[in-house]
């Protein structure tokens, strides 16, 4: 069945209900809602959540916005926590303690703090062990829940509260970690990078594939943060679009080691287009700081080229 946003919205009500307390203009809730819409309506889900913005604003006792089962334990262990749930499912199914005809899917959500940094060990362990689960990183490029501190997902030169753009040090001086590639290095059956873009098609289709591929799968999803990035709340979808059209955030998937870029901009936009509407990059546009934009562009270009090369190489012997 071809993707049709209208039909999906009508046929699959959101499994993350309204009334949660995420900020206006936050990229995470539309991502979570669309990913959960990719679950077949008859299937049950256990969602695990790392501590972070999403967790503290969707499950404040005694209210929960999750219509499926949900578990949060701590910051760094959504992967391990969900692997325990999945292991119990396997064992209890095998011993007949659970209805054998009912299906439960396992989806973890973590921000880049809980995933790239403090939670990477737990994530790596869960993925390597091959639990039948999807781990979703909603990447907003800093520790937003504690007030915009740098993470290893923060882009170079970004102004954060622990890498403030000062007179001597102009923001974060290190490049961004490439988490999707680290996950590819785990030889998982399915890894993809995506974002809410063009009617959510790319996001929905990748989520569906990831959820219904047996084994451990991983999605890295761009989730802009209006407070941390400094854009107008109504511009969320525009920021996503610019991240993709500049190739800052390429959309691709890796299925059993084979790369496929799922969107190639007809005309790759210069990186300034993405940087300009965000306050965290404001200092890069001051006279004398042109070198920062040049360097940023160079990094985007080389990473994009690397991806093109990987696509070519991995498809050669298919």
């Amino acid at each position, binding site marked *: 069945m071809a993707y049709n946003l209208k039909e999906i919205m009508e046929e699959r009500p959101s499994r993350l209900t309204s009334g949660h307390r995420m900020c206006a203009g936050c990229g995470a809730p539309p991502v979570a809602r669309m990913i959960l819409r990719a679950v077949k309506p008859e299937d049950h889900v256990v969602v695990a959540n790392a501590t972070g913005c999403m967790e503290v604003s969707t*499950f404040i*006792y005694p209210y929960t916005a999750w219509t499926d*089962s949900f578990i949060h334990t*701590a910051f760094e262990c959504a992967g391990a926590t969900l*692997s*325990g749930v999945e292991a*119990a499912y396997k064992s*209890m199914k095998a011993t007949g303690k*659970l209805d054998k005809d009912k299906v439960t899917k396992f989806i973890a959500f973590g921000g880049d703090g809980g995933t790239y940094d403090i939670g990477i060990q*737990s994530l790596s362990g869960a993925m390597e062990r091959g639990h039948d689960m999807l781990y979703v990183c909603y990447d907003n490029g800093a520790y937003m829940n504690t007030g915009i501190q740098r993470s290893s997902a923060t882009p170079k030169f970004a102004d954060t509260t622990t890498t403030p753009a000062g007179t001597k040090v102009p923001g974060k001086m290190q490049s961004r970690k490439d988490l999707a590639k680290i996950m590819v290095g785990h030889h998982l059956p399915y890894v993809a990078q995506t974002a809410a873009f063009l009617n959510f098609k790319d996001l929905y289709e990748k989520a569906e594939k990831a959820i219904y591929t047996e084994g451990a799968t991983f999605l890295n999803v761009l989730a802009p943060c209006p407070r941390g990035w400094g854009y107008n709340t109504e511009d969320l979808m525009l920021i996503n679009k610019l991240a993709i059209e500049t190739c800052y955030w390429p959309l691709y998937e890796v299925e059993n080691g084979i790369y496929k870029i799922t969107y190639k901009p007809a005309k790759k936009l210069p990186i300034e287009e993405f940087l300009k509407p965000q306050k965290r990059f404001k200092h890069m546009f001051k006279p004398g700081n042109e070198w920062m934009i040049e360097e940023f562009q160079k990094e985007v270009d080389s990473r994009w080229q690397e991806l093109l090369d990987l696509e070519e190489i991995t498809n050669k012997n298919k």
Partner: protein
Amino acid sequence: MSIRERLSGNEAAAIAMKQINPDVVAAFPITPSTEIPQYFSTFVSNGTVDTEFVAVESEHSAMSACIGAESAGGRAMTATSANGLSLMWEMIYIASSLRLPIVMSLVNRAVSGPLNIHCDHSDAMGVRDSGWIQLFSENNQEAYDNLIMAHQIAENKDVLLPLMVCQDGFITSHSIENIELIEDDKVKEFVGKYEPEHYLLNHEEPIAVGPLDLQAYLFEHKKQQADAMVAAKKVILEVSERFEKMTGRKYGFFEEYKLDDAEIAIVCMNSTAGTAKATCDKLREQGIKAGVLKVRVFRPFPAEEIAKALSKLKAVAVLDKADSLNAAGGALFEDVTSGMFVNNIHVPTVNYVYGIGGRDTTVTDIEKVYKDLEEIVKTGDIKNPYRYLGVRGDN
């Protein structure tokens, strides 16, 4: 008929786990408890258990996975020691606050640093305020028996708290002793089925576990944990009584050894109780009225019961195999003396920190403690209540 065997403490723990047949075991190797998940893996590989064994990449993940599995509606177990428990620390509190009756086999070892792989109780003492039930075991038989009783205590609806069974690293974990095992079917019947009221994998009733719990509720939730710990006392005795009916082996909050007519006594936990009993016997032959109180249930702490059991003595020594480094005394000492004070029982009591990092504690050492107690009885002078036993360079 029960089965007579010769097993190490680790083997005994692994066999108890095999007979319990939990849904999930998640563990990471650490000396001296490594053998437990090793033996258990063999049971998994040979299909003698139905358990999913999750070979996690750390102890933090071991406890996280146990929390996930238990919340899912399964029985989850683990084993660890020392630094492994330290790494779990964050999740230890989360497990108890979520009221998950996870059962752990804790093989006591000194917490770093410096690194040391041998026995003391600093690991268990580090989590004494975490809301876990803590049972201590003198020998392999007790480590086994405590594990068999664990689920019936932890899963009781008035309790719903995680439970750890402690035994001494190497001293009992690696010593082979005679043991009496219970038949598989009897264990199965005793442990029973786990039927949680609410669980993640229930399609009919999705639940949310682990909220952000702010000023309006956390206090009440913590009070509920405290109430459960109080309620656990009764349940522990009930389960122990049922266990006695099945095996003939009697367990209470503590064991009183020759305490009836004793004038001086030692309070201690785990394997040292064996040494203390042997010393006690020796002194009794010399006409010295020595006794031993061996604490089995450290959390919940039977403060009143212990205080009463010690009330007729002339002097007491509390032995701590971990120091609190608080300039006042070890945890067991503080609990015992505070129990005595609150119950208006005033017996001269001193503390000995001993056996740190696996330092041998011999009959000669224990004899010295009793001699010191005799001196206190004679002079009525405690001098220093906070002492070290068997350490070099101590005046």
